[in-house]
């Protein structure tokens, strides 16, 4: 008996040693010792993208290692979507944007499972995978997006011919190679899916990157943009100006144009209004929450996105399951920076909840999103968002907005943004 007591004191003593380095964590340790000296619970995170990795790291940090974190990810490498349009422009390669998962595991004691989720048993708090299962106290689903092929079914099996390149990887390289193979005077045909979709300014940035490449190497070529939306959905004035001033006569922008049919062989698309052909097609399908969210049944908003509390990011339909990143139903843009912000609000709330404390009732965070208009010039949209307790959503605070014009200075800031967010998320 005394031995047990002695061991408990030793463990408590270790807790104090850790806490004395960071006094603010002492309360956490006191709370932990009441329950279990080693861990106060396990959080399982599905998805190792910007959101999932950030949640993993910050739960470990803010719980002083007292919450066990398990990440399930099927890919063995992280490929950044931000900056991946530069692969099309030619100033980056896909290998510049590819990283391993080793440092976040090693530096923060995150348990890693390389596997694919097959089922989620919310009643018994279990995640089932191809090669096993794991129990959770709280589950975070950070599944990213999935593509909806119901209106364009033939595109699902012809991605080699017509890539979306909307998840950075080999499709990005494929699209670049198609542009390299296109003749001078060819037509690059790209669409913008109806909002909401991942990265609102992304398709327009892509137009700039392709235009930058074509202007330098194939100046007789054209770009046709079929936008399902009534107007450019982000940084409208800036993109319009850039197309006119930097790439005059090259970009043919057509709003309110939803693609209804694609003939892969002839590279021809039909919309409600017209039939258009191109030499290189980049069709970006409409999007919904990724598969794990579908498996958990948390995609309750039109069977597309996941409704959550913006205080805890807990699903409004399944308790103890939180959803973060592009998969959530939100009035905010689906950006990598916002995904990391949601991840940290969620991480902080979970730490507080597991210590039987109250999460921050009014979170505030900032979003900065850069778009490259050439190989070295960029422009931003930046906004602080503040929780509105009446509307129960995040609302843009005063002062947000976009650049006056793109610049090399902001291009450098955009590169620094990437370096810092990669450092924060991946190490």
């Amino acid at each position, binding site marked *: 008996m005394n031995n047990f007591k*002695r061991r408990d004191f030793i463990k408590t003593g270790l807790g104090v040693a850790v806490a004395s380095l960071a006094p603010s964590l002492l309360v956490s340790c006191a709370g932990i010792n009441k329950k279990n000296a080693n861990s106060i619970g396990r959080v399982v995170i599905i998805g190792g993208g910007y959101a999932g990795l950030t949640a993993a790291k910050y739960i470990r940090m803010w719980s002083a290692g007292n919450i066990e974190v398990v990440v399930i990810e099927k890919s063995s490498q992280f490929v950044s979507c931000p900056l991946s349009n530069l692969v099309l422009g030619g100033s980056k390669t896909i290998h510049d944007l590819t*990283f391993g998962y080793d440092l976040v595991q090693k530096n923060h004691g995150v348990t890693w499972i390389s596997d694919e989720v097959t089922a989620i048993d919310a009643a018994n708090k279990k995640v089932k995978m191809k090669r096993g299962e794991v129990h959770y106290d709280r589950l975070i689903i950070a599944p990213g997006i999935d593509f909806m092929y119901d209106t364009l079914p033939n595109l699902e099996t012809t991605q080699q011919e017509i890539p979306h390149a909307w998840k950075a*990887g080999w499709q990005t390289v494929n699209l670049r190679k198609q542009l390299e193979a296109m003749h001078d005077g060819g037509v690059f045909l790209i669409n913008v899916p109806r909002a909401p979709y991942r990265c609102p300014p992304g398709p327009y940035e892509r137009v700039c990157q392709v235009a930058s490449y074509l202007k330098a190497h194939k100046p007789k070529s054209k770009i046709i943009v079929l936008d399902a939306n009534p107007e450019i959905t982000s940084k409208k004035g800036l993109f319009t100006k850039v197309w006119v001033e930097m790439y005059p006569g090259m970009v043919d922008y057509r709003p309110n144009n939803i693609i209804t049919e694609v003939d892969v062989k002839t590279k021809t698309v039909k919309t409600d209004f017209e039939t258009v052909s191109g030499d290189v097609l980049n069709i970006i399908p409409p999007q919904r929450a990724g598969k794990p969210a579908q498996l958990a049944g948390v995609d309750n908003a039109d069977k597309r996105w996941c409704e959550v509390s913006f205080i805890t990011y807990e699903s409004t339909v399944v308790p103890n399951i939180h959803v973060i990143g592009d998969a959530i139903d939100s009035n905010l843009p689906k950006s990598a920076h916002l995904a990391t912000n949601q991840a940290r609000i969620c991480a902080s709330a979970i730490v507080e909840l597991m210590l039987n404390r109250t999460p921050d009732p009014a979170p505030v*965070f900032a979003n900065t999103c850069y778009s490259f208009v050439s190989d070295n010039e960029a422009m931003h949209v930046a906004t602080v968002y503040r929780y509105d307790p009446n509307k129960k959503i995040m609302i843009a605070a005063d002062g947000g907005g976009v650049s006056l014009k793109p610049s090399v200075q902001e291009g450098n*800031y955009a590169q*620094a943004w990437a370096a810092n967010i990669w450092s924060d998320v991946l*190490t």
Partner: protein
Amino acid sequence: MKYSIFIGLSALTIITSIAHAAEVISSTEALSNTPHIRTLASSCAACHGSNGNAISGNAELAGMDSAYFTAQMLAFKDGSRPATVMHRHAKGLNTDEINLLADYFSKQNRVPGHVPKAQTLKAHHE
């Protein structure tokens, strides 16, 4: 056996006193280390690194003098210091938040930011 109880009691005394010290600290100095401020501060990481340890030349917020931090943010907020993007962030924050962020970052240790190494994309990746 008596020896172990003695150690236990000593440890208990230490724990109690440190807990008391922590309470005193939390009531005076550690207002900035609340969930509200730690998450707000962490949203700066995309440009200023983890806990303000920036890489790539952006302002290093970790260990920055709190008076200097506050003065710069207020200057961004009222426009007296020109900026490309920081005025947008400063205007969205209230003075209390700026003061608490200043306190939070001034207390972060300066450590070299980790830089993940880029690698070749494997053939089997999506």
